[in-house]
Structure formats: C-alpha cells, structure tokens
C-alpha cells in the first residue's frame, strides 16, 4: 500500500504537513463563501431604505411582537448571546482536547472533545428553539429580504456546526482508535478539525452583531 506522504512530518517546501495546508486552503474558500453573503447583506441593507422595515400586513399579524416595525427587533438577542457563549466555550474545549493529546493524556482528550460535541449539540438545540419561534409566528425566509438573509446566513452557519459535530463526533468515537497506532497523525487530525471549528466560531462572532445587534 502506498503511504500518503507528509501526514506527520512537514513538507520541506511549505514547512507544513499536508492536511494543515489543505484545511487553510479550504478555509480560504469558506471566507469567500461567507464573504459573498456578508457583501450581499451590506449591499441590500445600505441600498434599500426599507430593508429593515417590517411590512404593515406582517406587523399587524405579529400583533404585540411587531410593535417596533424593525426586523432585527424580532430576533432573540438573549438566545443568540447564549449561543455565542456556548460557541466560544466550545472553541476552548476544542483547543484543550488538542493540548491534552500533546500532553499524551488521552482520557482528558475524550473529556474535552466530548464537551466540544455537547456544545455543538447545545448550539443546535438553541438555534432550533429560535427558528421554531420564528416559524410559529409565520416568519419565513420568504417574509422579507432581511429574514431571507438571516435564515440563509444562520442556516449555512448551522450546517457548518453540524458538519463540525459529525467530524468531531467521529474523532471522539471510532476515529479515536488511531491514537493507539499513529498518535502524532491523530494529534494532527485534531489540530486540523480544531482549525475548522475555530473558523465556525469566527464566522458567528461577526454574524451575531451584524444580524442581531445592529
């Protein structure tokens, strides 16, 4: 069987192992993906004076919920704030799982990675509660341009959280077997998964004020 080169040791030309170079190239493409959406949001918000205004018929339907007539006031800031804290905490637990492997403490790794997965689950549960509240008030992406942008950006971000949860769950469970046979390669895998996870946190750091607070 042919070995995939530079799984552990760095390539002489880049100074990096291949997976690390790969994840950074992937993250660069992700910046473009979210950048396009942020750009659309800025363009729509600055270009349309009624972008944030709730149409009269929807405001009437919302009743007491529609008093402010501004879309962003319909979003649940306390829940989003809680989700921000959950995601920030999960970034620390992720990096601590990598530290544990560096210190060759596999038990601690399982604990920190398990917590990271739980945080991801918690984020999704809170997001589901938030979405459910919107749907129960008949607020959908089709209700207005702001909600279309809101659901697209937070929905795409939530998909990234689910993706991270699947990968981290695998690395916590069946994928952790690699620690016994190739510990350095496994540690590199956790570092790469961590880079992705921190990026997901980074995107939320900008999404939260942009959509909920401004």
């Amino acid at each position, binding site marked *: 069987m042919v070995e995939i080169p530079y799984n552990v040791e760095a390539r002489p030309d880049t100074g990096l192992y291949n997976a690390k170079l790969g994840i950074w*190239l992937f993250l660069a493409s992700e910046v473009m993906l979210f950048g396009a959406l942020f750009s659309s949001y800025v363009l729509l918000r600055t270009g349309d004076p009624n972008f944030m205004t709730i149409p009269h018929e929807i405001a009437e339907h919302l009743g007491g919920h529609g008093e402010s007539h501004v879309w962003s006031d319909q979003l649940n800031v306390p829940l989003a704030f809680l989700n921000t804290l959950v995601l920030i905490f999960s970034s620390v637990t992720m990096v601590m799982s990598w530290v544990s492997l*560096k210190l060759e403490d596999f038990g601690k790794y399982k604990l920190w990675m398990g917590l990271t997965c739980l945080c991801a689950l918690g984020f999704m549960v809170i997001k589901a509660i938030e979405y459910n509240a919107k749907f129960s008030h008949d607020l959908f992406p089709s209700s207005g341009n702001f909600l279309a942008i809101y659901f697209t950006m937070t929905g795409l971000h939530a998909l990234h959280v689910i993706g991270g949860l699947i990968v981290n769950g695998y690395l916590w469970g069946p994928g952790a077997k690699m620690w016994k046979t190739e510990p350095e390669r496994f540690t590199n895998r956790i570092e790469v998964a961590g*880079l992705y996870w921190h990026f997901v946190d980074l995107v939320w750091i900008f999404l939260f004020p942009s959509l909920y607070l401004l």
Partner: protein
Amino acid sequence: MTGHSVEEIKQEARKYWVVFVALVALTVITVGVSYLDLSTGMAVFVALLVACVKGGLVAGVFMHLISERQAIFAILLLTVIFFVVLMFGPTFGRIGSVGTS
C-alpha cells in the same frame, strides 16, 4: 507548537483560558453597547471593532496564526485581497448608479 516542552504546552493552555475570559467579556461589551443610544455609524463602528478584536484573538491564539508558517500567510494574503474586492466591489460599483434610476 511542534516539538514544544510539556511546560510550554501547559503555559499555552493557560493562555487559552485567558483568551476565553477576554472573549466572554468582549461579548458582554458588544451586547451592552447595543443598548446605548449611539448613532448608526458609531454603533456599526463599535460592533465591528469589538468583533474584529474577538476574531483576532480566535485566529491569532486558538488558530495559532501568531506563530504560523509563511505558506499560510501567503494563502491568507490572497484571501484578504479577494475578500476586500468581494466586500467593497459591489458597493463601489453601485456608487455610479446612484440617482440614475
């Protein structure tokens, strides 16, 4: 972090917790400022400034960018150029059409 001693790694771990506390504090500041009666321009400026500081902490410390190899900075430089074009290109493109419709 390759080839670091146990003590250096433990010191690094302590740094992660300090950054965590800073991120929580900055999040509280972001929410707190949103309740102040600031002008739109100032509110956007403060919110994005705090977000940039938080993003810098995550990228610099958690993603180890402060001690990364040149190859990654080359990728990021290219990303930043395209990102700036993507963010400001459409806005500048619109300036010429303002008031024409």
